[in-house]
């Protein structure tokens, strides 16, 4: 520790009347987590919370992926996209389907300027929190952080296994990771005359597709 660091710690100790090695009281109790409702009710709540936040959330069945992607490409005029290389996205062949629709694919670990030119970024949620309409994403070389940030539109695929009842469960799993981002709706501001405006710096649109059980 630096000299300044020692000095700060010393003045904190002096202010508190503590000495190095004075025992620490146990941390006060934390309130218990929320209990999950039945799985379908949890999905319903997630969808309604995300929609209330101006996201677009829906259930997507196994044979609806193709049509949903086509709709999204048309609706958001997607010409260029980037996506994570996660097992679910590979199994659903999101990349192949996007290419088949004529969408140019940019590697997720591409240069920041290339990612910023993408219309769409596709990720897979590591966590979903129904109560607040929140997605949790971790990061790794296959799952770069900027994919959910730089493109104009963010699509997150949510498996049933990603659902957690409360922050407690998310945190106990995520704290071993270098990065976690919790996302609740598209980027927003009310800084000009309190008018809510979407898409200030992050994505203007957030689409969230919840897969069927076992998908």
């Amino acid at each position: 520790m630096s000299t300044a660091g020692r000095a700060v710690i010393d003045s904190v100790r002096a202010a508190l009347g503590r000495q190095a090695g004075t025992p620490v009281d146990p941390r006060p109790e934390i309130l218990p987590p929320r209990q999950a409702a039945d799985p379908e009710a949890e999905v319903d709540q997630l969808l309604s919370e995300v929609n209330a936040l101006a996201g677009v959330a829906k259930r997507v069945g196994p044979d609806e992926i193709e049509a949903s992607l086509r709709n999204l490409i048309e609706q958001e005029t997607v010409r260029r996209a980037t996506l994570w290389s996660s097992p679910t996205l590979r199994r659903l062949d999101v990349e192949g389907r996007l290419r088949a629709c004529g969408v140019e694919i940019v590697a997720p670990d591409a240069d920041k300027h290339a990612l910023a030119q993408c219309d769409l970024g596709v990720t897979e949620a590591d966590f979903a929190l129904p109560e607040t309409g929140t997605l949790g994403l971790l990061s790794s070389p296959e799952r770069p952080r900027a994919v959910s940030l730089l493109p104009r539109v963010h699509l997150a695929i949510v498996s049933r296994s990603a659902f957690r009842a409360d922050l407690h469960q998310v945190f106990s799993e995520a704290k071993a990771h270098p990065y976690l981002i919790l996302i609740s709706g598209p980027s927003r501001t009310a800084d000009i005359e309190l008018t809510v405006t979407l898409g200030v710096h992050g994505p203007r649109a957030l689409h969230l597709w919840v897969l069927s059980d076992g998908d």
Partner: protein
Amino acid sequence: MSDAPPEYIDFAAYSRHVPTTIPAAVQQATGRFLDTRAARVAEMENWEALRQAASDLRLHTLTHLDVYLERLEQQVTAAGGRVYWARDAVEARAHVLGIARSSHARTVVKAKSMATEEIGLNHALEEAGIQPFETDLGEYIIQLAGTGPSHIIVPAVHLKKEEIAQLFREKLGLDAPADPVALTAVARTALRERFLAAEMGVSGANFLVAETGTLVLVTNEGNGRMCTTVPDVHVAVVGIDKVVPDWESLTVLLKLLARSATGQKLSTYTSFITGPRRSHGEGGPKELHLVLLDNGRSRILADEVARETLKCIRCGCCLNVCPVYKNVGGFAYGWFISGPIGAIFAPQMLGTRAGRELPYASTLCGACVDVCPVKIPITKILLHLRRRVAQGDRVAPPSAPWTTRVAARLARWSLATAWLYRLGARVMPVLEAPLARNGWIRWLPAPLNRWTRVRPMPAFKAGFRSWWASHTKGPTTP
């Protein structure tokens, strides 16, 4: 706003020179936040239990701060980050400038951070030839305007869209219609280039987790994510009071923060950053530097009553409910932090000499105490600080000129005389008709302009008797 800490905050004088547009704009914002907050609180069965838990947690952390700070430094270092300690603003600025120089930064993008305002970082960067860009939309606007924030959450709330369009035209040479959506799009495009070009990102942190050395950053716009993801170097400047023991503690604090601040359940983005990136592929900064700022905080800890000030999680809710703040806005408090929390924080940070007016800038109504998510006993601390001011510095006693005394006597007479009061209730709407617009009177002739020079006057709505008559006629049960 000047970057050097003020030597004397003349609250009375500042509040006399508040433009009339500020109270109206501030009250619109605070009213909106309070309405949505009330809806969120009503949904929570355990709101009071959460507040108590948060209060206990924050106080526990402050009274064991040495232990948690040491653990934090160990964990940040273990995760590959670098920790710097700053006893004061000078040391903090020197650390940031040193990092900027060694990473050859020419431009810096900044997420909204109270700590960097506290140390006057922007000015220091500019002097060193490094251009800082505020990236929170409200902060960006007031940086262009060259003023300070009027509200902690919506810093540019005092500016009209027409003024912002004018500002963009003058400072950026960009034409945009006076429309919030169009103006936001202009700012997005302008700032995108800054994000992609900047060599360094500077942020604060809402919390620092001692358990793992994690920085927690809450934003709605995504600018916090941009500043901490896109540039190669990330510097966080954070007060030592922002430490929390562990991730479990965050389950309490995060549930209170957004609900109290804006009435959201969670803010749009909450980032949890532990060290620099571990692989090139995942993205994020190569270097993570954490500057831990004391700057008077350890001194505050020594006062057992006033130390609870440092429990603050900067939600701004105490501003929203404060009758004084709502009428004078943020500028009158003369420093980067305003409202009830500013009134107790600034005198302790700057000394009761510089901040001697602020403990008196309150009616002691206690609305702030009722809403504070971490239960800071603000009124108790205000009284405690008044005592400290009285024992140390002297302040001028409040006095009223003879005109005010005569006016008060006339008011007492007319309010206590039934026929005069009734006559007034009939005459008032007629008299004020040419002046009132949308329920507000913005201009009055002298000598009544003593009021409207400082703030708009609410227009007379109805006599109490006629209001009462129509009120009781309505259905009594739903």
